């Protein structure tokens, strides 16, 4: 894109008080007094993908709050992304209610674990959760990995653990997911984008 030539300028109250614009009938005093009665509202707009189902509709998320200050940002509105070729701005009722899910009191916001024999869920950190998962995977793979089948043919497969990938994963993420899991010999790989 050739943006090199594009110039920027400021529309300031001094400029609006200038004689040229006044010649055209612009009355600076009243207009500038009005400016001072207004308050600026700020929101940001970002893209994301509805996490609910295989359609993986694109959404635009509006949030308030200024990241540079210490204000808490809050999602105020979610709508279909008109530029996403999958849904062209439309959402099904589940997707249209996405904001309620995000702000739900019952929403799971961190990893939790219920130890064997315990009745309570316990909050753990993401690092602890990932370590636990890795240990479980290794233990299960060590115990159940099949290098050769009964006829002595090399198969290198691990069939006792499965993996469900996110529907929001792009091609690149999908490629890396499969490459990683196949390297471990995992055969049961699926994605939320197929469910």
């Amino acid at each position, binding site marked *: *894109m*050739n*943006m090199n*030539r*594009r*110039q*920027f*300028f*400021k*529309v*300031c*109250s001094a*400029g*609006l008080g*200038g*004689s*040229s*614009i006044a*010649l*055209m*009938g*612009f*009355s600076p005093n*009243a*207009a*500038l*007094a*009005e*400016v001072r009665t*207004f*308050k*600026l*509202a*700020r*929101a*940001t*707009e*970002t*893209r994301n993908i509805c996490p609910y189902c295989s359609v993986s509709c694109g959404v*635009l998320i*509006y949030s308030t709050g200024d990241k540079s200050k210490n204000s808490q940002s809050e999602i105020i509105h979610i*709508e*279909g*992304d*008109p*530029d996403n*070729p*999958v*849904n*062209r*701005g*439309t959402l099904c009722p589940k997707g249209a209610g996405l904001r309620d899910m995000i702000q739900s009191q019952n929403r799971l916001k961190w990893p939790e674990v219920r130890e064997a024999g315990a009745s309570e869920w316990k909050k753990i950190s993401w690092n602890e959760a990932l370590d636990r998962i890795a240990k479980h995977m290794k233990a299960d793979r060590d115990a159940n990995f099949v290098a050769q089948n009964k006829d002595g043919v090399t198969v290198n497969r691990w069939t006792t653990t499965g993996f469900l990938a996110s529907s929001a994963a792009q091609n690149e993420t999908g490629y890396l997911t499969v490459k990683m899991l196949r390297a471990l010999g995992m055969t049961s790989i699926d994605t939320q984008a197929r469910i």
Partner: protein
Amino acid sequence: MQFPPQSLPSADDYPSLLRPGTSLFARRASRLRTLAGSAPAADWLNRLALLCDAQQTAFDALGDLGLRLPAGFAWQQAVSAGREAEIEAAWPAIYPQLASAMAAAGVAVADLGSAQASLPAVRALLAGEAEAALQSPTEAVLAAALQVVWTRFAQGLDVPTGKVLLAERGHCPCCGSAPLGSIVFAGQGRGGARYQECSLCATRWNAVRARCTLCDDPGVVAYLGIEDAFPAVRAEACEHCKGYSKLYFQDKDLVVEPLADDLATLALDVLVGEQGYARGAPNPFLLTG
């Protein structure tokens, strides 16, 4: 029993380009009058409405320029490239008509001969290369005359009704000028789609939402609006280039008109400017100095 045909949303594909309508200037005039209502700058908006009326009269009288898209045109450059003189031949005849409409409204502007001196400034502004808005009513009227001929040219073009790959999205694919802002459509089909509008010929071209149109940085953009006023108008501000341009949302006001609504919401420009952002979109009727 017959059911209406149904299609998936993904089958909807809106056109890359929309050419201006034949009543563009009349719509601008009527929108300016509506916005003038009780606005503090009512006199100014009403005078500009008269200028738009005169533009519409001149546009209607001008008729089709008879210029067409070259066969197999690839959109690798503006359609007008190399044909500017041919396209602009009519502006000197239009300028005096607009000038006399302004004189009748109490705004004196220079005669055709002296107005020529303003051409470089007007061209720089429309190209998006000026470091300030236009400075004099003469320049604004000159730009208005150019708008009439260029809009005629754009209106006569058979632009494709589907997707075309535009070489460049920062400038008008028809005339190469800078956009004055973007409209976001409401309703079936094109709902939510953003189109930039050319400050000169009013051609509209599709641009992705939630992305800075001034520098194309993929970072997060901020939307700045005025609390409890002008709900259809937002400034899209970018942290990367510190620039902004305005968006006009049809779903908040169905008759929103980028050029007219821009002029009625200069308060937003003042407030956004105070936040440290600079405007990257020209409007030839905005004067400073």
